[in-house]
């Protein structure tokens, strides 16, 4: 029997004929007619006019015919809502049919008819079907709840279907469980705050049991749901991981990827020193590699996900480079993705192989692929220093092929290699210059111009070369124009005698003949610089540039974390959060990786490090890879007193000190970053608050300057001179190397001779030299600020450690922090800007003239209301009262009086903070009792806790 004939009827009066056939008495004829109707429907013809006739065929015991009618109904019910009511009776009747297949069919179809009136009638049959004795009906009904929810969410809630659905999670049949999980997950997504899924250890256990028994699809639903669960501790997350790992051997790639998602997420919680953690890492690699032998479409999905996994945990696949080698017959989308991953995995160990491969690829046919391969060679050079020379020679070979797009791409990447390794490969410039004429893409032209400008002193005919570009100045793209301007200025500064005319020409082209504000402004800046102080101009324009860093195209860490939570889904394929491509409320919920428990990482700011600019695709600013560096450069310049003598337009708004520039710059820098973070991570959001605009996540009360209490008391005092011996806490690691691209910072605070000092140990654990260190604090409770620049004079070479002592002043901007003695710090170097926070002992701030007159003490003690008094216990302290008094005195905690009552020594003490706050304390020491009691009284009771902690630390050390 063939059905294709139904597709061919296109006669006039067809509808009429069909109508007659539908009303025929013969069953066969009826069925034929319905088939024709469906065929017409499929090819897009409007057969809605036949609605009543088709619905009439519904009352049949022929299952095949019934299914066809239902199909028709699903398509047209919405356009004929009144007529659709006619079908209701049959549906309700079918839901009672003795045959479970028919009951399920009816409830399945009813859910697809999106007509309000019908929906009401659906409730009762659905309720019955949810409790049907047959699992096939129950699993269908479970999905039907989701359908109904999509039509009328309120109705589903009112009718209590959600509770019934929740009960189905404990159903005996695994498929019912799986469908109920799928339905609940979907409904929960549109109610982000409801506790619909209510995942708890018991329900998780049920899901894990069902996981072993249900179909491959059901396993996916369950795993995707599990991924949303937050285990309470590392042990629970380990036990879930153990039960999920067998899924990695499933033949269905989606099951594997969903299992990988669960594991990647829960692994975050496992302590890294755990044996199981290592085992798990090892178990992840083989299944990921196996995904690459699937069909190409799945390979693509897998590769996009592997790209994320490699960025998050490079260790998993570091030995698997070979499997990402491109095969000649791979579809282009697979080739491009493999190439990306190859670069990410490239390291010193495998670079020879990788380069050989890349060279092979650069001779292929597909233009995009070849370009990417060439670019990859450049990236290898930047990433693996040892390979740079080989990469450069490979690129030169490629330039010799004279294939236009290969040459252009090679020049763009060679420019980046120069930026990473200056003064090393300039011998190749001659070869590059030979190809000047063939460059027609702006990016390549700009790159070439940059090279000519940067190395003008070594290119004899640099002026001629640049002049040749100048002829068509107005036809060039902005990118090229900006670059040309800068290059000619550089040339002028290097060879002023011969190029005066040229530089005037370009300045006038840029400032007078151009509509582009960027170009004009840059033109004016150069003009002014050159005419004011050529020496300064030279220092500015020809200043040594920081080297570019290797990790230029990593996904921003918070986005990466979110994408890891979406492994296997479209978001992971697009590398975009769901909100970027899903309409409406669904899926906009941001997912996060769980925090590791029981480790001390919580106090550090997250690594928001990757703001380094793109791989030099911008124009002039491309010589400075990141905003942070730009600020650093400006900081080192002395822009301060500008003279307004020569330049044509009057200057205004130039009166900006270096510090201001940094402050303002950091404002925008921090502002930029805290936004995508969306307050996900406390530390950096608070940083944002400190430096820039006030983000909504900070409770308002903390942001407002402290009225009365603290604020008023701040005065800008700082003590002078006092003997040493104050307590200095040992150094702790504030910024681990892992979080700061190899820079490790540990430190402590000390008060020496009345000066507060931050003592830092900087260790370079990266492979490259670090330079251009600078430091900045966020506003803090006591106005701590660096009193001078961070004195790191020589570059910090790999594995080198230096000790730096940074004097601090207490005159910086003030904002109350939580805890009070919290200090948020930004340190930048040539690589990036890093953020961390640390807590300083408040004893730093105890000034040397903190000894109060007895009378004043008494009066003040009485004056401070009793509710401001706090009492603390200091345990296990074996000093007598005199020793304690001496020890405290060394830290500027002064004993004013001592009294002995009933064998108990009472020490009365006063402390003055750098901002003028007085703290009074009473220490009770009972001989023979190692536990002291200390009462602290202060007008600003917030500090009491800190003071107590200090006293305790001082006494115990």
């Amino acid at each position: 029997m063939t059905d294709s004939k139904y597709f061919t009827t296109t006669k006039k009066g067809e509808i009429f004929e069909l109508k007659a056939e539908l009303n025929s008495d013969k069953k066969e004829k009826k069925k034929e007619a319905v088939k024709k109707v469906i065929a017409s429907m499929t090819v897009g013809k409007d057969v809605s006019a036949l609605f009543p006739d088709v619905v009439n065929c519904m009352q049949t015991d022929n299952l095949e015919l019934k299914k066809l009618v239902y199909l028709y109904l699903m398509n047209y019910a919405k356009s004929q809502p009144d007529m659709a009511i006619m079908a209701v009776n049959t549906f309700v009747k079918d839901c009672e049919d003795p045959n479970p297949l028919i009951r399920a069919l009816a409830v399945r179809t009813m859910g697809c008819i999106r007509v309000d009136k019908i929906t009401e009638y659906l409730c009762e049959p659905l309720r019955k079907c949810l409790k049907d004795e047959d699992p096939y009906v129950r699993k269908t009904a479970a999905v039907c709840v989701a359908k109904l929810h999509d039509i009328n969410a309120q109705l589903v809630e009112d009718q209590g279907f959600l509770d019934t659905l929740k009960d189905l999670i404990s159903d005996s049949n695994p498929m019912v469980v799986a469908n109920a999980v799928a339905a609940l997950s979907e409904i929960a997504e549109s109610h982000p705050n409801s506790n619909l899924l209510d995942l708890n250890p018991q329900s998780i256990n049920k899901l894990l049991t069902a996981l072993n028994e249900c179909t491959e699809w059901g396993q996916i639903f369950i795993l995707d749901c599990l991924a949303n669960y937050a285990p309470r501790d590392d042990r629970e997350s380990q036990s879930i991981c153990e039960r999920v790992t067998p899924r990695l051997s499933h033949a269905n790639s989606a099951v594997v990827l969903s299992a990988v998602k669960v594991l990647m997420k829960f692994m975050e919680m496992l302590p890294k020193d755990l044996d199981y953690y290592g085992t798990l890492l090892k178990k992840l690699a083989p299944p990921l590699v196996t995904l690459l032998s699937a069909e190409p479409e799945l390979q693509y999905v897998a590769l996009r996900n592997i790209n994320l996994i490699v960025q998050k945990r490079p260790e998993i696949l570091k030995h698997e480079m070979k499997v990402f080698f491109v095969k000649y017959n791979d579809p282009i989308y697979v080739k491009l993705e493999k190439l990306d991953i190859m670069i990410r995995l490239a390291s010193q160990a495998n670079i020879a192989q990788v380069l050989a491969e890349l060279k092979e690829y650069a001779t292929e046919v597909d233009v995009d692929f070849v370009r990417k391969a060439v670019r990859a060679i450049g990236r290898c050079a930047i990433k693996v220093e040892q390979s740079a020379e080989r990469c450069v020679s490979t690129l030169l070979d490629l330039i010799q092929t004279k294939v236009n797009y290969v040459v252009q791409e090679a020049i763009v990447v060679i420019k980046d290699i120069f930026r990473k390794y200056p003064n090393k490969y300039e011998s190749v410039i001659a070869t590059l210059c030979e190809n000047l004429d063939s460059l027609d893409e702006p990016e390549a032209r700009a790159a070439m111009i940059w090279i000519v400008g940067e190395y003008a002193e070594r290119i004899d005919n640099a002026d001629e070369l640049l002049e040749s570009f100048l002829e068509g100045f107005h036809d060039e793209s902005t990118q090229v124009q900006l670059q040309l301007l800068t290059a000619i200025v550089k040339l002028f500064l290097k060879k002023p005698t011969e190029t005066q005319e040229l530089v005037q020409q370009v300045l006038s082209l840029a400032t007078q003949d151009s509509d582009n504000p960027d170009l004009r402004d840059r033109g004016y800046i150069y003009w002014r610089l050159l005419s004011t102080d050529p020496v300064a101009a030279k220092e500015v324009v020809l200043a040594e540039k920081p080297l570019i860093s290797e990790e230029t195209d990593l996904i921003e860490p918070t986005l990466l974390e979110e994408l890891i939570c979406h492994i296997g889904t479209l978001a992971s394929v697009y590398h975009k959060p769901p909100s970027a491509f899903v309409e409406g409320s669904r899926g906009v919920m941001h997912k996060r990786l769980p925090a590791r428990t029981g480790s001390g990482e919580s106090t550090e700011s997250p690594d928001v490090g990757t703001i380094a600019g793109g791989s030099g695709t911008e124009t002039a600013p491309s010589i400075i890879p990141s905003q942070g560096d730009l600020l650093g450069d400006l900081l080192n310049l002395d822009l301060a007193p500008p003279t307004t003598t020569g330049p044509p337009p009057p200057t205004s708004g130039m009166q900006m000190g270096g510090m201001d520039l940094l402050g303002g710059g950091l404002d925008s820098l921090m502002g930029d970053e805290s936004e995508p973070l969306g307050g996900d991570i406390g530390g950096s959001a608070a940083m944002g608050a400190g430096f820039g605009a006030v983000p909504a996540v900070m409770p308002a009360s903390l942001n407002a300057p402290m009225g009365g209490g603290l604020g008023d008391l701040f005065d800008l005092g700082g003590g002078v001179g006092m003997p040493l011996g104050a307590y200095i806490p040992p150094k702790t690691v504030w910024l681990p190397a892992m979080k700061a691209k190899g820079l490790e910072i540990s430190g402590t605070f000390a008060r020496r001779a009345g000066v507060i000092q931050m003592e830092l140990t900087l260790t370079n654990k990266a492979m490259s030299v670090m330079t251009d260190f600078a430091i900045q604090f966020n506003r803090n409770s006591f106005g701590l600020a660096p009193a001078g620049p961070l004195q790191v004079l020589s570059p910090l070479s790999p594995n080198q450690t230096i000790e730096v002592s940074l004097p601090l002043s207490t005159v910086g901007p003030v904002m109350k922090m939580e805890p009070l003695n919290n200090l948020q710090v930004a340190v930048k170097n040539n690589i990036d800007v890093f953020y961390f926070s640390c807590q300083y002992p408040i004893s730093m701030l105890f000034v040397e003239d903190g000894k109060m007159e007895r009378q004043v003490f008494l009066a003040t003690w009485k004056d401070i209301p009793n509710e401001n008094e706090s009492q603390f216990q200091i345990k296990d302290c074996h000093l007598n009262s005199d020793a304690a008094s001496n020890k405290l005195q060394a830290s500027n905690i002064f004993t004013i009086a001592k009294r002995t009552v009933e064998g108990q020594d009472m020490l009365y003490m006063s402390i003055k903070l750098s901002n003028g706050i007085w703290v009074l304390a009473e220490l009770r020491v009972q001989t023979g009792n190692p536990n002291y009691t200390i009462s602290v009284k202060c007008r600003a009771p917030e500090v009491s806790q800190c003071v107590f902690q200090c006293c305790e630390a001082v006494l115990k050390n």
Partner: protein
Amino acid sequence: MIGGLFIYNHKGEVLISRVYRDDIGATLSTSVDAFRVNVIHARQQVRSPVTNIARTSFFHVKRSNIWLAAVTKQNVNAAMVFEFLYKMCDVMAAYFGKISEENIKNNFVLIYELLDEILDFGYPQNSETGALKTFITQQGIKGQTKEEQSQITSQVTGQIGWRREGIKYRRNELFLDVLESVNLLMSPQGQVLSAHVSGRVVMKSYLSGMPECKFGMNDKIVIDKAGKGGVTDDVAKSTTGKQSIAIDDCTFNQCVRLSKFDSERSISFIPPDGEYELMRYRTTKDIILPFRVIPLVREVGRTKLEVKVVIKSNFKPSLLAQKIEVRIPTPLNTSGVQVICMKGKAKYKASENAIVWKIKRMAGMKESQISAEIELLPTNDKKKWARPPISMNFEVPFAPSGLKVRYLKVFESKLNYSDHDVIKWVRYIGRSGIYETRC
């Protein structure tokens, strides 16, 4: 989840369209057209199997000249969608053979019925053909008894959805094929750049009842573990006479109890009836490369190329390789080719830009050679010829990974047949996957 599913012919006409979600339904005709314009009629090669057009994502796979596209507006599980599309192709093929425009038109009612069953509101449901065939037939279901009905539903939803109860055979028989494809990428100098075997264990089981099967092979981990129980490795090896192989990774049919494999590394399962793929595996260590290709390409001036290729077979002399084919790519500007080969037949195929050399059979430890002179038309094309790799096809009667089946045991406690009564057939076939040598 999946919002809709369309099947197009190569012209971009819709053959099947099924909408599951309202968000797709609203823009149905535009999305149908968008896919036609942007993907099927796109001029260039497909750049991605997932395309986002106007906030709607299209997943597509192509079978001969038929396009299957799943459409969604949500953040679906992408891997699942593709797996489903493949599964759907399998199901259709199992019902009516090749997926072609004609077959689809001939079976459109059936396809709608299947789509209704295997995808509910965009969620994939049981899609095992064995189960589906019990209640979705082209003949219509008649006269089912209550027992039959509940048997169907319990199978479709049950734990063992892939096998029905009450199967009976007079002769209990098992066919086991170890099918391997060996992949190689070799540098012109003969250095192995990458090599791996991807193998499949395909079974045909005709067994009565609900038998429990256990499958064992010379998996290194299992053998080593057994070896630890007193006998050392070497002794174990010498007594069994077999070497064990290191399996990088394996995946299993859903009938295999994964948790048992994870804990004990034993492969136990209740088999589906008929043909199915039990497992897939991948090995990279100690692979027997059945052939070695030694290329020699020399450019003589601008208009001539001399090519010499030697192939060497590298396995036991008693074994015979079959269907050997060596494909030597030629430049696009080839004008003429002269070929001389010692064995088999060689031909220049202009349409494929290659010299194809075919040898019917070749024993192990032999070698053969072809030499060709390729004349080129002079061109002013600056771009060099990309020199695609020389590829090879063959079939050998052994497993290049070294995998050996150690046992396959059948237990059926309820019926009166034992493991010994089952007739078992095992065969090994090694084929070339992507077997390339750069030149």
